[in-house]
């Protein structure tokens, strides 16, 4: 049915073209020059598709024969789409005939053919995303107002709008200002003039895509992947328009129409949409166009300059405090259909309705959807909320999860800042910074105390618990890949971190999930995938893949790295390590010192002295830099026996890691309260006294195999 209609439309246009070309030859002769002005590409569409330059009417006649070969009549969608391409080429011939003898067939406001220079000029903003898309609006809208509203909605998004047919009269009727400078380009009133925008797309492929003319496959790939165009066709959609639409679809441009008779939808390509007011949304989603947000709509400034600003109690209008009342901040992944982009809802009282100086509840749930979104990114996005809200002038934020605290200053309130603006900030920042994974985002802010209690206890806490479980259950064995991190190479050129679920980056700031998110958000960035398909020694944690990766990313400075050994090819350090672990020969164990610890260790070295042996990307067996979190990992120097080897830590560090470390010791060796056996500076800072203490406590390291 649909296919037959396309074939019919194609046949009709082909017939007309043959007639027109024959007529022109009869009148002017076959040697008559033909072409468009201000282009080096003759008939650009035909040249791009076939690689042949048509310069005379006689050559055009031959070209029609080539076009005929595209018009196969199998009842297959692809035959129909190729017939669409044939239709487009015919349209180009018909349009070219209008330009015979240097004629100027188009007059204000219509542009007709667009010069090469416009394409070169337009190509740059298309590449940078300043022009996020190209809309082709075809036919007459149900009412002039609906048509103009649609045009304006695209214009407001920076999208280039081209107009064909009755919509041009409608726009003129309502006095819409048109022209290339305002990104509204009326092409022409006959349907064949649509070829002038196709010509733009194809020349863009030749100029910007280095596509070889005649390489139709690369051409179609380029327009599909790189030219963010789409078609809005108003009813009635006749066979000819349908055939032209098939050509657009072949180029990768979806067609959105309000036609509901005799048209079947083709998912992702020919899309029905009854309401013209929804064309914008449906079109952008179908073409996967993301609009850059350049300005956040709030009454106060937003800049990193305000990040460190503190709002004192006396300067405060209201506050929200998760340590006293129920609060929460949460990112949730949803299906595309469940999220309405830029919807911001406040449930409960606004700041105006809160008592001056009062302590209130707040819970905000940011729901995101995207083809590449993964629940693992939720906490990564959430951790940025602190930074986003802090960058608002006159608003401050501390804490996270259900323990955040927010103050809105009097001045910000007087400037008109309200709860909903927090939503605006979260929305625009999430969309801007996470545009690689977030396609749609909506924000709901609860200030109603009962709702906040519900969100905190019934929604947020279960999610946090689940995430913690996921983090705990993530093991090096349970994942398929590790990640490299070379963020610090600027000052430590030969260092490469290998980040695994159980061994976070030595700075403590890059977990495996962070590295994964960094890789997705910035594919050419500092975190790259390292496969783990070719293990050499599972106990040492050595892999051929890992060795190859460190060789590559250290530019050959490192050849072998093990993940779990401090003695054999230990992982290198940049200099950002939270802690350093060093071998302590008397007790047959290891000593850990953290950066904050200023005193002496039983190694006879302070932290800075240990750091000088460990940093700079060198491998010093017996020394290793690492994050605090790694101390309680089951993979902590597993090759040498694991955490049982830890004989000394500064008191403060010991207290920080005690709970998790004791849990690991219990699980691995059945030891209760392991940290009680570990020395600290209040017990001993010289090796003899330490060994005495360890002997008294029966520390397991004393009876283990020697490390050296």
């Amino acid at each position: 049915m649909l296919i037959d209609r396309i074939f019919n439309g194609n046949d009709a246009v082909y017939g007309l073209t043959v007639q027109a070309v024959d007529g022109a030859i009869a009148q002017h002769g076959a040697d008559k020059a033909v072409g468009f002005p201000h282009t080096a590409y003759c008939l650009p569409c035909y040249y791009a598709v076939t690689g042949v330059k048509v310069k005379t009417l006689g050559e055009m006649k031959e070209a029609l024969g080539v076009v005929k070969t595209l018009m196969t009549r199998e009842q297959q969608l692809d035959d129909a789409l190729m017939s669409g391409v044939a239709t487009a080429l015919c349209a180009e011939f018909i349009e070219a005939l209008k330009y015979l003898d240097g004629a100027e067939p188009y007059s204000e406001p219509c542009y007709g053919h667009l010069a090469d220079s416009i394409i070169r000029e337009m190509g740059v903003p298309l590449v940078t995303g300043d022009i996020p898309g190209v809309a082709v609006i075809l036919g007459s809208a149900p009412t002039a107002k609906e048509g103009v509203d649609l045009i304006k909605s695209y214009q407001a998004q920076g999208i280039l709008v081209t107009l064909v047919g009755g919509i041009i009269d409608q726009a003129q009727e309502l006095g819409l200002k048109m022209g290339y400078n305002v990104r509204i380009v009326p092409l022409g009133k006959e349907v064949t003039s649509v070829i002038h925008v196709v010509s733009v797309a194809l020349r863009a492929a030749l100029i910007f895509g280095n596509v070889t003319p005649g390489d139709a496959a690369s051409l179609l790939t380029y327009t599909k992947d790189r030219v963010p165009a789409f078609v809005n066709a108003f009813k009635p959609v006749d066979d000819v328009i349908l055939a032209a639409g098939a050509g657009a679809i072949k180029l990768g441009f979806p067609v959105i129409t309000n036609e509901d008779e005799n048209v079947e939808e083709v998912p992702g390509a020919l899309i029905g949409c009854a309401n013209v007011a929804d064309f914008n949304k449906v079109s952008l989603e179908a073409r996967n166009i993301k609009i850059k947000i350049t300005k956040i709509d709030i009454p106060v400034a937003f800049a990193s300059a305000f990040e460190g600003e503190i709002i004192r109690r006396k300067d405060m209008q209201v506050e929200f405090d998760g340590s006293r009342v129920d609060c929460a901040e949460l990112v949730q992944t949803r299906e595309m259909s469940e999220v309405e982009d830029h919807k911001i809802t406040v449930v409960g009282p606004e700041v105006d309705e809160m008592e001056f100086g009062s302590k209130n509840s707040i819970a905000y749930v940011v729901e995101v959807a995207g083809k590449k979104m993964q629940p693992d990114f939720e906490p990564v996005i959430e951790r940025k909320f602190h930074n986003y809200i802090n960058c608002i002038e006159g608003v401050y934020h501390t804490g996270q999860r259900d323990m955040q605290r927010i103050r809105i200053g009097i001045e910000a309130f007087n400037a008109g800042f309200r709860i909903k603006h927090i939503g605006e900030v979260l929305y625009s920042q999430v969309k801007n910074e996470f545009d690689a994974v977030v396609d749609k985002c909506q924000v709901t802010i609860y200030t109603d105390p009962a709702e906040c209690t519900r969100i905190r206890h019934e929604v947020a806490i279960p999610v946090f618990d689940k995430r913690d479980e996921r983090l705990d259950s993530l093991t090096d064995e349970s994942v398929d890949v590790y990640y490299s991190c070379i963020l610090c190479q600027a000052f430590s050129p030969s260092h490469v971190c290998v980040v695994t679920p159980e061994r976070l980056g030595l700075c403590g700031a890059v977990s495996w999930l962070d590295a994964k998110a960094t890789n997705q958000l910035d594919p050419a960035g500092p975190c790259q995938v390292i496969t783990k398909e070719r293990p050499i020694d599972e106990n040492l944690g050595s892999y051929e893949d890992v060795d190859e990766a460190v060789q590559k990313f250290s530019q050959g400075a490192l050849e072998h790295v093990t993940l779990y050994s401090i003695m054999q090819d230990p992982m290198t350090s940049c200099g950002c390590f939270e802690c350093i672990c060093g071998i302590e020969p008397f007790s047959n164990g290891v000593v850990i010192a953290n950066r904050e610890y200023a005193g002496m260790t039983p190694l006879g070295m302070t932290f800075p002295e240990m750091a000088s042996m460990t940093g700079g990307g060198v491998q010093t067996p017996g020394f290793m830099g690492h994050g605090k979190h790694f101390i309680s990992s089951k993979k902590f120097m597993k090759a040498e026996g694991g955490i049982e080897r830890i004989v000394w830590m500064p008191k403060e560090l010991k207290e920080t890691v005690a709970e998790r470390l004791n849990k690991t010791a219990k699980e691995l060796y059945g030891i209760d309260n392991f940290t009680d056996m570990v020395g600290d500076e209040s017990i001993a800072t010289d090796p003899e006294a330490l060994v005495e203490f360890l002997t008294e406590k029966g520390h397991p390291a004393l009876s283990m195999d020697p490390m050296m």
Partner: protein
Amino acid sequence: MPFNQKPQKFNAKINDVTIGSGDKTVTFGGDCTFPFYSFDAESENSPKIGVEISDMGLEGVSEGIKAYYEGATTMGEIAQKAAAMEGADFVALILEGGDPNGVNKSIDELIEVVKEVAAAVDCPLVVEGCKNVEKDAELLPKVAEALQGRNALILSEKEENYKAIGAAAGLAYNQIVGAESAVDINLAKQLNVVTTQLGVDAKKIVMNIGSAAAGYGYEYVVSTMDRIKGAALGQNDNMLQMPIITPVSAETWNVKEATASEKDMPEWGPQDERGIDMEVETAAADLAAGSDAVILRHPESVKTISKLIKALA
């Protein structure tokens, strides 16, 4: 034991990138050895020298430079004298007057200067932006448009504006793209990767990996260039095989050794000589570390570095 020379052979080479059009062209890169290691393999192509002129004319330049350009009043005449300088391979026009925090000349005004210079000389051209990323994102595409057909090197795109400048220079107007990063091998590589992902041919990119005047944190420049050449040749990393151009004068003429007057610092000697010394020392070190081209201002510096290249290459 007799000395037994073992040439260090690499199965990789630095891309050769030609700028300029007609019979006046100059080629950067092309070697397969470390800088001046002519004992490992014959050098394909010795390093090149550009002479920098500014849209600000001769305002604020040193006495010696002023003396060289004496009689030149228009930008066209200045450009002609620059092109005629002994040892010069190309002319580099820096549009420093465009800086919004400085004179803030309009883009139209600057494009007029570009056109005047382009009309006055037929030698290969390099155009440097004003260093402000937002302004350059608008200015340099216009420069690329104005220089169609000249096959000029546009310096430079940075991480923040690579799309606008890379697309205009590398795709729309067929110029050579300068990719500037801040003295970090990974950032240099990443910029090359994303630029080629735009569709720019890797063989049409020249890197400016960042610079410093000798003595001003310069060790970073040496180690970064060294590592880039090592990766490009030793590991055949084709995203680091772009030749390197280093604008030297823009750094060296702004440090105190070059700007302090003789009156203030009598014990330092004549000001002009100090400026030349800084320029020569820095340029020599850049070339030894891996630059395939340097941009200088003073005729004495150009002469000296030209002599150095002839002696070593």
